[in-house]
């Protein structure tokens, strides 16, 4: 595990009493940042204290799977989020997620596989090098961002559990913690959030289990501590704060499809030729382009056509949207 956290044995050279306890450190930071934020920003300062809670990761850039586009700013990526568990506005996740506890974290691996069970996040990721991949994220709302994710290929993790021949799909589930996730106390969606991929999609080298962004662990508002990233699909497929991975024989239900089946399908591949019933998907707004940055054309499979088009050969993408 590459998240640098002090371990009991590591501090031999330094007396425990010499170390500022994490809570004091964080409190101090929060005070400083709150003071700073109050002076400088006045409003919308919630994310600042959040940023203080992330830890550094050791990452290696995977150039083959990275765009050359300049990534969006850390601020844009961490303050403009759709994460309905923390509220409906884009600013809500950053403002309402400070009480969420992403550690310790356990993931249950269940269903059609030889090895199943409950695993601490550290054990789930043990032995995997964390890669940095700069992906474009295309939201179904017709905006996009470029994000330097840190994570491990989903396939590498899934293979360790030896899925059986019955494993045709992989289903994911988000944690259910209404006491920490205020959005789950309202019925805006059917909680907990669930998502799924066909097994060949899950095993595709582009599918990433992300644990961080910008070389740091994921902030709560971005799906800490573990989330899915499938860059050729609309952003809502990228389920956050995952607590269960289940291998299934049948296509698993997915949250947005349950909420509005004629608007959101199981596949949710980015496709400029298949419009959302209420708005066009032909062009997208690039976050960070400013007030006068005009929309740009949306690319088939979000620009990952070469890599993933073969997965859908012969399929009517208007029918399987």
């Amino acid at each position, binding site marked *: 595990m590459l998240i640098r956290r002090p371990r009991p044995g590591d501090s031999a050279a330094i007396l425990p009493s010499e170390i500022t306890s994490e809570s004091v450190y964080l409190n101090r930071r929060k005070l400083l940042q709150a003071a700073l934020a109050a002076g*400088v*920003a*006045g*409003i*919308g300062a919630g994310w600042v204290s959040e940023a203080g809670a992330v830890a550094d990761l050791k990452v290696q850039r995977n150039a083959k799977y990275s765009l050359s586009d300049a990534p*969006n700013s850390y*601020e*844009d990526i961490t*303050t*403009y989020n759709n994460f*309905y568990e923390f509220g*409906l506005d*884009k*600013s809500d996740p950053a403002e309402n997620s400070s009480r969420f506890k992403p550690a310790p974290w356990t993931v249950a691996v269940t269903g059609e596989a030889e090895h199943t069970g409950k695993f601490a996040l550290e054990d789930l990721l043990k032995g995997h090098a964390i890669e940095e991949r700069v992906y474009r994220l295309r939201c179904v*709302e017709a*905006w996009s961002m470029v994000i330097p994710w840190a994570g491990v290929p989903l396939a590498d993790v899934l293979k360790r559990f030896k899925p059986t021949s019955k494993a045709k799909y992989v289903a994911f589930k988000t944690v259910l913690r209404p006491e920490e996730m205020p959005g789950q106390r*309202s019925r*805006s*969606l059917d909680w907990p959030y669930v998502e799924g991929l066909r097994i060949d999609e899950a095993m595709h080298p582009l599918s990433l289990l992300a644990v961080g962004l910008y070389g740091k662990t994921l902030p709560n508002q971005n799906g800490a501590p573990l989330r899915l990233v499938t860059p050729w699909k609309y952003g809502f497929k990228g389920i956050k704060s995952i607590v269960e991975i289940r291998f299934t024989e049948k296509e698993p239900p997915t949250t947005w499809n349950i*909420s*509005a089946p004629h608007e959101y399908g199981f596949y949710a591949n980015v496709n400029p030729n298949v419009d959302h019933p*209420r*708005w*066009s998907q*032909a*062009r997208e*707004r690039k*976050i*960070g382009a*400013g*007030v*006068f940055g*005009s*929309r740009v054309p949306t690319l088939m499979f979000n620009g990952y056509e070469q890599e993933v088009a073969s997965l859908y050969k012969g399929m009517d993408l208007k029918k399987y949207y």
Partner: protein
Amino acid sequence: MPSSAVIRRVIKPALFVACALPLLSLVFAAFGIGGASLGANPVERIQDTFGQWGLRFLCITLAVTPVRDWFNMPWLVQLRRMLGLYAFFYVLMHFLTWLILDQGFYWSGILKDIGERPFITIGFSALVLLVPLAVTSTNKMMRRLGRRWKKLHRLIYLICLLAVWHYYWQVKSDVTEPLIYLAIVLVLLGWRAWKARPKPAATAVMEES
């Protein structure tokens, strides 16, 4: 009741400034005054702010007559034109933001959206219907149209319903807020219908004849 001088010199100017505050908040945010910011998606922020205040001012305008009657404040009607024109202003800015900043005069997409996407069709219709109301808001037009003026301006009832519908249809999953607006508009319209209901005596006469 405030004197006409107070209304003209104090209340109206104060209301004018108050109604401009949403616009000013955007200007402040655009220039980063006081640390305010338009956020990661400034176009969306501008468009949403204008749209939301357009809807709010439509509701406020629609509320003038009922509030006047409920609280016996006849002078309120003198503020209605300004409120209505502000509603038109914010709705127009909402539309222009979409046309210029969001779509960037991408005409093929714009025409397709207006024609094929019901929520945009409805919103656009509401704007179009507001134009004659704004144009005929002057004293001169009021005089010239006489009784027809009142009839024409009843279009606001339809416009408010269209505006709420437009909002309801663009929300992704949680329709609580649009439903709150709908409830407000229905109360304001329902009260009018109730007030205009045929009086029992009149009904009786009609039934006999």
